[in-house]
């Protein structure tokens, strides 16, 4: 267990290091920041002075150390566009993103797991067909397209919910469904179904049947618990889709979160901001991955010893 966790933790550190390197190198490749901060009239002395101030006169490894020192203290510099500390801008956006992500994750679990189990238990039934259709759509339709279609049908056409923004509870409905369906729901449903089929076919479930236990008890007590393991790993595997989904969903619904901010920063070429956002997103990303690994190792003892 400890060896496994150490390994995952080590991987997390390397990932963070790699991302910080990429960001640092890109910042240098994209050009001298002085071109943005100074105008053409600036004298050579001003140029040199600002270079000293920004630490551009030092060798690259020292610049990287200074950059990392700032990052570790939560200092990502100042946004070019808004002229405020990047950290301040990001901290205003964290809560909406977490709310939307959490709601979508819950919805995906609440719909995906029971539907997956029932699809497996009643294979070939109408419910199974519905589950298959839901999963196929979720895997093939871009989540941003689903979102736009939802806005067109339910907000513009039927006028049931607000088309965008984050206001009353009903403004959460469309973004949550969009993010859940396009991200985690399809995967959790499909995996839950196949895992359930596997366990229902296993020896110990057959033994439970032979003992004369009730079907309900067999499904929920014996098979379900073991079938939960594969879908859990999915949370780790489908992180890229969830991340992409949360950025595009926020953009579609004008949701005031970090994803929308990232796209705005992209269009404004606000480098410090997008840099800070990337680091924050990466932190969240690797943290979730680590959490999943720990949970996985906790539930499935076989993992701890490999």
């Amino acid at each position, binding site marked *: 267990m400890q060896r496994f966790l150490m390994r995952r933790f080590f991987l997390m550190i390397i*990932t963070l290091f790699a991302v910080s390197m990429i960001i640092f190198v890109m910042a240098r490749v994209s050009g001298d920041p002085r071109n943005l901060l100074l105008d053409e009239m600036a004298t050579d002395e001003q140029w040199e002075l600002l270079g000293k101030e920004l630490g551009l006169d030092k060798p690259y490894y020292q610049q990287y150390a200074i950059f990392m020192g700032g990052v570790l203290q939560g200092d990502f510099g100042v946004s070019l566009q808004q002229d405020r500390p990047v950290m301040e801008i990001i901290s205003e956006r964290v809560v909406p993103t977490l709310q939307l992500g959490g709601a979508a994750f819950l919805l995906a679990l609440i719909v995906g797991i029971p539907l997956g189990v029932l699809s497996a238990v009643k294979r070939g039934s109408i419910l199974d067909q519905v589950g298959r259709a839901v999963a196929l*759509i979720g895997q*093939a*339709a*871009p989540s941003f397209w689903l979102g*736009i279609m939802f806005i*067109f049908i339910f907000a513009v056409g039927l006028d049931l919910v607000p088309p965008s923004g984050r206001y009353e509870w009903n403004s959460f409905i469309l973004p949550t469904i969009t993010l859940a369906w396009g991200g985690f729901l399809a995967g959790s449903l499909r995996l839950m179904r196949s895992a359930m089929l596997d366990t229902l076919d296993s020896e110990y479930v057959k033994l439970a049947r032979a003992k004369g236990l009730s079907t309900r008890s067999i499904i929920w007590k014996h098979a379900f618990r073991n079938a939960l393991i594969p879908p859990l790993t999915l949370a780790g595997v489908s992180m*890229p889709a969830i991340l*992409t989904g949360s950025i595009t969903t926020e953009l579609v619904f004008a949701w005031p979160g970090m994803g929308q901010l990232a796209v705005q920063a992209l269009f404004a070429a606000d480098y410090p901001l997008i840099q800070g956002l990337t680091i924050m997103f990466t932190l969240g*990303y690797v943290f979730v991955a680590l959490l999943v690994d720990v949970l996985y190792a906790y539930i499935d003892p076989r993992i701890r010893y490999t």
Partner: protein
Amino acid sequence: MTDVSAFAPPQPVWVRAFRAVLRWRRPVLIIPVLILTSVVVAGITADWISPHHPEKGVLVDRLSPPFWSGEITELKTVVPGSPLQKTNVTVDQITEHDAKRIDPDVAVGSQITVVTRPEGTTKYLLGTDHLGRDLLTRIIHGARISLVMAALTLLVGGTMGTVLGLTAGWYGGWIDEAVMRLVDIILALPLILIALVLVVALGPSFQLIVGIMAIAIWPLFTRVTRGEVLRVKTADYVALARVSGAGTLRIMFVHILPGITNSVIVVATLLVGVVILLEAALSFLGAGVPKPTPAWGLMLSEGRDYIAKAWWISTFPGLAIFLTVLSLNLFGDWLRDALDPRLRQLE
């Protein structure tokens, strides 16, 4: 439950044959294959079959709806006003100046029927976008872009991943360890954000996007290839090849590679959809191929601002992505079951 079938007469041969065909040939697969074929044909022949120019629009014909849509008219009250002061005109009002262009005899205070959306024409089968460009033409050209990008990405990423997987699996030891740790790291990176950072830093370009997507997918090839090599490595024919004096490279590429091609093909097929979706997401976010290239994701994002007025701009490119990826997934699933059922665990 009593087994009735044991007592019933056997079913006629043709019924059993039909059932077998249904079970094994999957007639449902005809639709996805048809869709995929038309997407490929559209991509190849885009320049000849497109009715209009993909990037030059006719501004007068902007926001024209699909051909089956009817005219939408509204009754508006005429209010005084010149073209310069339109600010205090509500939705159900029209200025005298504008109304005079429809009907020169109209008086202030009377009501007039105004066409708010023209009829669809067969000139633009799926309608036009906000710049008067034909949607059908752009979707056909978008098919080419999606296919070319997906093909290049899979070629670059697939080759890289397969070669690394072969090497890691064959040599084992520290090479294997190094390659597989690299795989773990790449898979742990939030690549969509790194793509955004790279595009901001280097500017959007075709090569950059393909490069980023290739980096995102090669680890998946490496994982599968490596696993397959480990399985095939101990086969008798590999040992015999070595006894007969074949070199390492020859064994790897002539003896082992053909044995694992099926798996690589299945992985590639299942990934085409993933790559198309990734490319669409990147261009939707503004980090894909630069405008005015008719990429599906880009068209979708352009139509977003017009969703209330012109639903077709976003709907059709999205439908194109959806149907293509859906067909690819169904086809890939079938191919996997047919060629290599063991890969099921890939999900």
